[in-house]
Structure formats: structure tokens, C-alpha cells
């Protein structure tokens, strides 16, 4: 069954690609079918027991799932299906539809394949398919391909090659590519291998998870890809890095003494990533960029949870991973809808869409609340667990870091909401319509789940629990979630529920009542109305509050921001290219010089013949 799903995906991708030559509607239907059919096949027929073995090129490949990968498959296929519905509408009338659909399906296939892989080679194969198909989506617009696209691919390749090196090293030690053999033999490996292998693997996964020094590709790539795709790019694809990290951190590193340092370092890198991502997100004026940096920050939280690695922290990390897929998926879809309807995603330009696109607003609102970690949405539960785990494991400094980052995140959350939806309506956007149903419904479904998980986190905590038990956690306990204070035995929030619902009530009051009221009281003026303040605004002074309103804050954190890692990478790349340019001057173009090289070669060999041979 396992491989049939992949074959269906692949066949579907090809059929969809070529169907575009015949009929667009047929293509849409085929596209949806080739996402949904394998997805439903997966949930209906794939169980932990059935394993598919194959020997290809003398290498034993094996496909099967476990509880952990089932959890991630839920994210991938769930979010993928929603984004697929959205895409059908999103892509209407755009060019390169076949290209988009093909790569979309291929990415989903690759991610499913990664989750099914029981050996490192098939893992790597699917990983690379995922990389290049997502790269092709990154350059879909044909914009900045030589900078953003190449940067993404280069970082992915560095990660993938680090992983490949780890894989061949493992093979040379183990004689086997199976993950279980690796897990079994890892504690007996020599110490330098115990360090080298995790470092290489974590580099590989860290690139996809956009961990701090390896994150520079993410903003460009996330914002460059079509938004319908970015939702799975950020929501699901980056989780593949998390998935890999979970395996490394738990299955390998928890059995060796060096694991402690790895955990600390990874957790701190996650924390720093969260802060930097947040700060940069605040600075952005483009919603895509903002969400991209926000994704980096959110992945930082997840990495903190996984890095700490106590049962609660791990659970928090995985829960946040699920929730992040939900809300970030929604938000990217929402930006996509706004961009499709207005033609831009810049806060400076778009304002006051709340009445034009109310459903998009509702979905965004719920997701933003979830993102900010405010009750009663899912994000809150995750963050609470994270704080609690950090405190119980005595990572007080890390708590401060995370807390700073979460608080600062409110700034960009506000900016997002206010920038697009609130504020004054402008004439320019007077004719904007709500996005088509097929785009709105997936957003609403996803945000509904964000909401549901806030109240009934047990729905997803059970699979997480199963996955963690598969990895070796909580053998003594039945339900890991009992380790946190906020849950009852059913996995639902109890302690804070009264408080929560009162907050909801207050919040809804403010949201609905005051907003409506404020609209009624608003006197509509143009942005250049002098009555807005004592002075006549100049041309460039935009009166929308979402722009530059946190100037003082940015000034405070500027020293941090000035040291962009990106600059160092660019400098390195330019320096290398200049060096290469210098090196190729050795081919002077003069035949005689080449002939002299030959003599030089012979003479060198003759002189050093005793050393060389």
C-alpha cells in the first residue's frame, strides 16, 4: 500500500501536468484527485504494520510508517489538501498552472515519502525531491531567481549534502542504511562519530527548519513562492526538518552522554532564532516577508521544545508544530487571498479590508491570536506547555528569551491585522471583493482547527503521545500530557478554563462591539486630511498606523539587527567567486603555456617521485 500512494502521487502529477494541454477544468479535477485520493488512501490503509521492501541499485529500501511519522503525515496531508482546494481557485487564470500543480503534488509526495522512509537512502531521495520541487516553486514567479532561488537551493544543498555525508558515514560504520540499525548501533559508535553524525544530520535538518545561522534563505523563498504553496512550504515542509531533528535528538542523542550538550546548544539556537525572527518580522512592511520571518521565529520555539527534550518540552514542540502548520498555513493563504484580490501584499498600500473581505479577516484573526499565543487558541496551549517545561527543567534564561520574543511578536501580529484589515478604507480598494469560496473555506477550516485545539488539545495530543511513546518516551506513564498542569485527564484544558472563557468573552466584546461601534463613529477622511493632526502631512507620510509605529523599539534593537548573517554569507560568496575568477586565469589561452604546464607537471612528478609513489 505504501508505495501505491507514492505511485498515485507521481502518476497524478504527470497526468495533471499534461492535462493542462487539454482542458483546464480537467486539470483542476485531476489535481485535486491526485492530492485527495492518495491522502485518503494513506489514512484508510496505511498502518504501522505494513512495510514495503525494495532493493534498488543494490540498496535495500524500505517504506512504512510509525506513530511519529503518522502525526507529521497528518500535518502534511491535512494542510496539503486544504491548500490544494485553495490552489484551484488561486491559480485560476494564471500561467504555468501545470508547472505549479506538478510541483505541488511532487512536494506532497516527497514529504509523504520522507515520512514513510525507514531507511536513509529513500529518506534522502525524497528529501531531495522535496528540495528541488520546492525550489521550482520558489522561482515560480521568475522574480529574483538568481538571488533568492539560488540561495535557497544552495542552502538546501549544503544541508542535504551534510546529510548525505552523514548517511554514507553511517553506512560505512553500520553496513546498512536502515534507520533502526542506526538507532541500535549509535550508542556503540566511536565518540567522534557520535558527534560528527548528529552534527551533519542536524545541519541538514536545520536548513529546512530555518534554524538560526542557516535561516537566511527562508524569508526570500517563503515570500517568493506563490502563497498557496508557501502555506505548505512554511506549514508542512519546514516540519520535515523538525521531524528529522526529533529523530536525531531523541532516537540518537538521548542515548549518549554528549547528547546533553547537543540539547542545550540546539535549544539556545532555537531561542536565538525566535528572537531574531521576531525582530525582523516586526521590521517588515510586506506581509509575505513578515510571515516568513514570523515562521522562522515560530520554528525557533518548536526547536527550543525539541532541544530541551523533556517529555513536556517535546510535547510542547510537537504541539506547536501542529498548531503552527494550522495558523501559519491560514495566514499565508489569507495573504494570498489579499494579494490576489488587491494585487499587493504591502501594508503601506493595502488598508481597511475588514468589510471587503470579512471571512478572510475572521480566519486571519483567529490565526493571529493563535500565533500570538493568546487563549483560547491552540497557540496558547503550546506556549504554555513550553514555558512550563522550560521552568521545570531550569532553563530560566531561555524562558526570558522566549518570553521577550513572544511579547515582541504582538507587535507584528498587530501590524498584520491592523495593516490589512483595520484602519481607514481607501478609495483605491473600494472595489475589492471577498475571495472566492474555494479560497475562503480552506482558511476557515484551518482556523477552526486552531480554535478547536485551544479548547480540546487532546485531539492532537493523543497522536503526539503515541508518537512520543514510539520514540521511547513515557513508557511508565499512560498519558504524557498529565505532566502539564493545564490539562485534565482527558487531555483538555481545565485549570484555566474559567479564566479563558472570561477572556474570550471580553475579547469578543471588544472585537465585535467596539469595532462595529468604531466604524459607526469614524469620520471618513482621506489620508491627507489636515484635520487628522495639527500639521499638513507630507506626501510620504503615510497615516496608516501600521507603518513604522514601533520606531523607538526598532531603534533599541538596531545593534542586533545590523549584524545580518546574510551579509557575511554574501561576502563569502562574492569572495569565493572572485577567487575562482582569479584561479581560472591559469588557462591563459596560449598553447605554449599549456605545453609548459605539461613539462612542469612531469618535472614535479619526477622531483617528488619518491614521495608520491
Amino acid at each position, binding site marked *: 500500500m505504501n508505495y501505491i500512494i507514492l505511485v498515485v502521487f507521481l502518476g497524478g502529477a504527470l497526468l495533471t501536468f499534461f492535462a493542462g494541454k487539454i482542458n483546464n477544468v480537467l486539470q483542476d479535477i485531476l489535481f485535486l484527485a491526485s492530492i485527495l485520493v492518495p491522502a485518503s488512501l494513506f489514512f484508510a490503509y496505511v498502518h504501522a504494520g505494513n512495510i514495503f521492501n525494495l*532493493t*534498488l*541499485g*543494490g*540498496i535495500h529500501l524500505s517504506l512504512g510508517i510509525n506513530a511519529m511519522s503518522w502525526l507529521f503525515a497528518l500535518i502534511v496531508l491535512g494542510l496539503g489538501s486544504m491548500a490544494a482546494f485553495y490552489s484551484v481557485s488561486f491559480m485560476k487564470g494564471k500561467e504555468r498552472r501545470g508547472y505549479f500543480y506538478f510541483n505541488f503534488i511532487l512536494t506532497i509526495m516527497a514529504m509523504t515519502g520522507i515520512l514513510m522512509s525507514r531507511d536513509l*537512502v529513500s529518506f*534522502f*531521495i525524497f528529501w*531531495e*525531491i522535496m*528540495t*528541488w520541487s520546492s525550489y521550482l516553486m520558489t*522561482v515560480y514567479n*521568475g522574480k529574483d*531567481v*538568481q538571488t533568492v*532561488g*539560488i540561495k535557497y*537551493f*544552495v542552502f538546501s*544543498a*549544503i544541508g542535504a*549534502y*551534510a546529510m*548525505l*555525508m552523514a548517511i*554514507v*558515514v553511517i*553506512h*560505512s560504520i553500520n553496513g546498512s542504511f536502515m534507520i533502526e540499525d542506526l538507532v541500535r548501533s549509535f550508542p556503540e559508535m566511536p565518540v567522534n562519530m557520535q558527534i*560528527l553524525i548528529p552534527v551533519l544530520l542536524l545541519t541538514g535538518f536545520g536548513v529546512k527548519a530555518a534554524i538560526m545561522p542557516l535561516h537566511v534563505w527562508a524569508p526570500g523563498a517563503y515570500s517568493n513562492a506563490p502563497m498557496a504553496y508557501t502555506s505548505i512550504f512554511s506549514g508542512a515542509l519546514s516540519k520535515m526538518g523538525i521531524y528529522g531533528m526529533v529523530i536525531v535528538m531523541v532516537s540518537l542523542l538521548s542515548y549518549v552522554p554528549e547528547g546533553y550538550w547537543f540539547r542545550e546548544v540546539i535549544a539556545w539556537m532555537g531561542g536565538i532564532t525566535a528572537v531574531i525572527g521576531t525582530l525582523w518580522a516586526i521590521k517588515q512592511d510586506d506581509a509575505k516577508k513578515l510571515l516568513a520571518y514570523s515562521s522562522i521565529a515560530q520554528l525557533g520555539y518548536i526547536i527550543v521544545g525539541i532541544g530541551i527534550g523533556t517529555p513536556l518540552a517535546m510535547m510542547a514542540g510537537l504541539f506547536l508544530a501542529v498548531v503552527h502548520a494550522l495558523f501559519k498555513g491560514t495566514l499565508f493563504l489569507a495573504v494570498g487571498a489579499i494579494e490576489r484580490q488587491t494585487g499587493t501584499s504591502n501594508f503601506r498600500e493595502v488598508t481597511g479590508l475588514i468589510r471587503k473581505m470579512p471571512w478572510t479577516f475572521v480566519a486571519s484573526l483567529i490565526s493571529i491570536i493563535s500565533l500570538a499565543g493568546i487563549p483560547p487558541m491552540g497557540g496558547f496551549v503550546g506556549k504554555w506547555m513550553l514555558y512550563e517545561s522550560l521552568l521545570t527543567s531550569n532553563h530560566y534564561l531561555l524562558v526570558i528569551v522566549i518570553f521577550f520574543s513572544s511579547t515582541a511578536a504582538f507587535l507584528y501580529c498587530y501590524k498584520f491585522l491592523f495593516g490589512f484589515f483595520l484602519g481607514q478604507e481607501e478609495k483605491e480598494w473600494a472595489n475589492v471583493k471577498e475571495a472566492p469560496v474555494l479560497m475562503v473555506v480552506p482558511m476557515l477550516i484551518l482556523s477552526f482547527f486552531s480554535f478547536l485545539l485551544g479548547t480540546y488539545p487532546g485531539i492532537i495530543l493523543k497522536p503526539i503521545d503515541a508518537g512520543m511513546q514510539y520514540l521511547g518516551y513515557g513508557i511508565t506513564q499512560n498519558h504524557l500530557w498529565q505532566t502539564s498542569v493545564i490539562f485534565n485527564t482527558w487531555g483538555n484544558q481545565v485549570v484555566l478554563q474559567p479564566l479563558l472563557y472570561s477572556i474570550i468573552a471580553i475579547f469578543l466584546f471588544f472585537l465585535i462591539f467596539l469595532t462595529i461601534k468604531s466604524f459607526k463613529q469614524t469620520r471618513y477622511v482621506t489620508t491627507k486630511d489636515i484635520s487628522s493632526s495639527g500639521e499638513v502631512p507630507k506626501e510620504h507620510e503615510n497615516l496608516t498606523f501600521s507603518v513604522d509605529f514601533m520606531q523607538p523599539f526598532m531603534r533599541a534593537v538596531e545593534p542586533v539587527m545590523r549584524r545580518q548573517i546574510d551579509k557575511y554569507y554574501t561576502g563569502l560568496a562574492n569572495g569565493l*567567486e572572485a*577567487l*575562482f*575568477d582569479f*584561479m*581560472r586565469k*591559469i*588557462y591563459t*589561452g596560449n*598553447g*605554449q*603555456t*599549456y*605545453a609548459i*604546464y*605539461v*613539462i*612542469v*607537471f*612531469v618535472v614535479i*612528478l*619526477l622531483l617528488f*617521485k619518491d614521495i*608520491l*609513489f
Partner: protein
Amino acid sequence: MVGTPVLFIVIPLLAAFLIPLLGMLWKELVRIVPGLVLAYMLVLSVNLLNHVLIYGPIVEVIAGWRPPLGINLVFSAFSGFLVTLVVFMGLLIWVYSYRFKRNVDFEPAKKYFLLLMMLITGSVGIILTGDIFNMFVFIEITGISGYALTAFYTGRDSAEASFKYLMLGSIASTFLLLAIMIIYSQVGTLNMADIASKMHTIKPVYKIISFIFFITAIGIEAEIFPLNGWAPDAYTEAPGPVGAAFAGIVVKASVYAIVRYVYTIFDLSGAYDFLILIGLITLIMAETAAIRQERLKRMLAYSSIGQMGLVMVAFGMGTEEGVFAALFMILNHAIIKSLLFFSGSYLVYNSKHKYIKEVNGMSKYLPITSLLFALGAFAIVGLPPFAGFWSKLSMLTAAADSNMLFIIALVLIVSVVELVYYLRVVNRIYFFNKEEKTEPKKPTFNALIVMITLGALILVIGFYPDAITGILHKASADLMDKGQYIHDVLSLNK
């Protein structure tokens, strides 16, 4: 059995002598006959390879003298695999250039096809022969055909490229003769197997010096680093199919020669490490030179040199896995680089200088060619699920098994460089706007067939590597078994 290895040499030679006569009868024959000959050679090699894989190597004696006396040809799993590959590529190149040359006059067309056929025959001869001096003769046959084909276009620069090639080739033959004579003066024989069996009697200093001369001479043809000055020029200025022939055929034969010397004839342990060393230097210098190229074919040429460096590294491991990986890379490189040369030469067809920027936006005008170029680019950097991935994986696995972590890291870093310059070209094809001056040229039907065949092969090997790995395993086992080779050749009672 349907024939013997000697037919690989004799039939093309007969045809080559016949072509001028046939051309007097009907002009089209000068195009058709080489194709028929190559097709026959392909059938022959496939048949023989099948036979060899089951029954063991065929040693063919010439002029009725047993091996130490006469010249012999050895069609074993290893050489047979390479011959099949070379002939297959040769046939594809013929199909590709069949119509390509239609606009040229009769006389040059006759010479082009004749020389192309002899280029392939010479390479086959290098691979098949069991005699070091005979190998020299075949190297010269290949060389002279190569010089002439490089200078085939009567433009300004092709003669320059050809002259550089000739200069280095001429120096190469000098060193080759010196090396052969040093060996001969010590053992009194020219037969490879005989030399190999007597190698232990030679004083080490002679061994080393003759090895140095050998490696210099063949290294020029095999494009190892300081000796490869001719290669980028020749690849750039030669007609497109000839560039593919250099990458897919001539270099393969030369690498075979190096490998034969290192593995079978000489018993120098340092030679393996030396192969790794020069392979790495070649890889690094070529790939870094490629990233800054402005001309498409030149970039492909440097990339090709770099790939051969990688092959050399794999051969230098001296293990059976290493040989397997190297053969796999040779196969993939032949297929993929030919595809890149073919499609690349159509992407910049009407351009004078073949600048990379002239491929901008070609995907709208040449969709299939562009797609195939992109496929080739993805495959050659080793992205799964295309053919290049499996060879890269096997190469790295072999390297890890030999505990060469540093080399793995270096190779992978260089792969990133390779990735960058291929992606830049692919991006230009797909996402840039067309330059005003460039005029796209639709590929001819033959060219399209060839390119699609190669693309399909990339996919087939990518999805089902087992189609080829069985042969490769046998071939690599065959190369590793030096004693068996000597025994097969010298104990011949025919």
C-alpha cells in the same frame, strides 16, 4: 557468438577506406555508411557483452601469434562495457549529426563522418587492445581524428583550439613512446598481461619514471588538471556533436587507459593515491573555473573535466566499490553530458560566441530542448530521482568505506559550486526574457530523437538503477581481478 572483437576495428577501417569510393557512387552513402557501421558495432558489442557476462572474457589473437608475441584484443566485462557505451554514444552522435551537416558541402561532410567514425574506432581500439604500443597507435588515430574534427568549422577560432590540442597531443605521444621504451627495455615485451606478470622484476625507479611518463601522456587526453588546457577550447570550438564525442567517448577511453595502467600493468601502490590527488585537483580547478564562464559550451567543458576528476577519485580508491562507482559515473556522465552538449548547442545555435546570456528565455521557443537541458542539469548535479544520484551515492559510499571523510566533504562542497552554475543557466532559460539578438533554432527531428532518448535513459536509470548495476558489478569485479586478466591472456591456447 556473432563475431569477434577484431571486427570492431576492421569493419570501420574497411568502411573508412570504402567511403571515398562510395561517395563517388552516391553522395548520401558517406553519411549512411558510418551509421550502419556504428549500428553494426553496437549490435556486435551487445552480443559480445552478453556472451562475456555469462562465459567470461574473450581474448582475440591477431595474426595467429599467441599473446606475448602477437597483438591481442581483450573483450572482458570491463572493456566490453566501455566499448558498448562508447559505441552506443557514437551511434547517437551519428544520428544527431546526420541532418546537422546537411547544409555543408559534400567534401567536408564526407570527411566529418569519416573522421567521426574513426574517432570512435580509435577509442574502441584503446579500450580493446592488450598491447601498449598498439594502444599508442589507437591513441594517435583518435588524436588525429580529434584534431581534424575540432578544426572542422572553418571559423577563426577552431584552428586555434585544434592547434593547442595538437601541440599537447604531440608532446603526449613523445612521453608515451618514452614510457613504452623504458618498459620494453626492461621486460622485452609489449603485451600488457606479459608486462604485468613481469612487473615485479623491474627496478622501482624505472617503473616510477615510466609510470610518470604514461600518466602525463594519457593525462593529456584524459584532461587531468595541469594538462587539460586544450580541452575547454576544443570543446568550445568543435561542432556540438564532437564536443559530446570528446566528453562521452574520447575521455572515457583515455580514463580506461589510465585505469588499465594503474590497476593491471603497474603494481605501484602510490599510484592509487596519486589518482585521488590529481582527481581532486582536477575536480576543484575545473568546477571553480566553470562557475565564472561566460560561454555555455566552455562551462560544459569545464564541468566535464571536473566530472572526470571525480571519476579519477573514485578509481583511485582502489576498491571494488570505488570502481563500481567510477564506472557508474562514467556511464552517467556519458549520457548526461552528451545530453547537455546536444541541447546546449541548440540553445545557443545561431550565436557566434555562445554566451550563456544568450540562452535567456529560450524555454518559450524551444520547450523540449530547454526541458531536456534542465533535466540534464538536475541529473548531473546528482539530484534524485535522476541517474546522477545513484552514481554519486555509490561514489560517496565507496569513499566512506575507504574512510576518506575529508574527500567526501570536499567533493560535496564542490558539488554545491556545480549546482550553482547549472542552476544559473537553467534559471536563465526559464525565467529571463529573451535577448533581442538571439534567434532560436528548432532542433531537427534526429536531434530531438537523440535528446529524448538520452533524457529517457536518465529517467530509466534514475528510477531503476538495477537495469545497469548488474553489468557494472561484473565489470568492476573484472577490473579488480588482475591475476585473472593475466591468466586469461597468457594461457591462451588458440
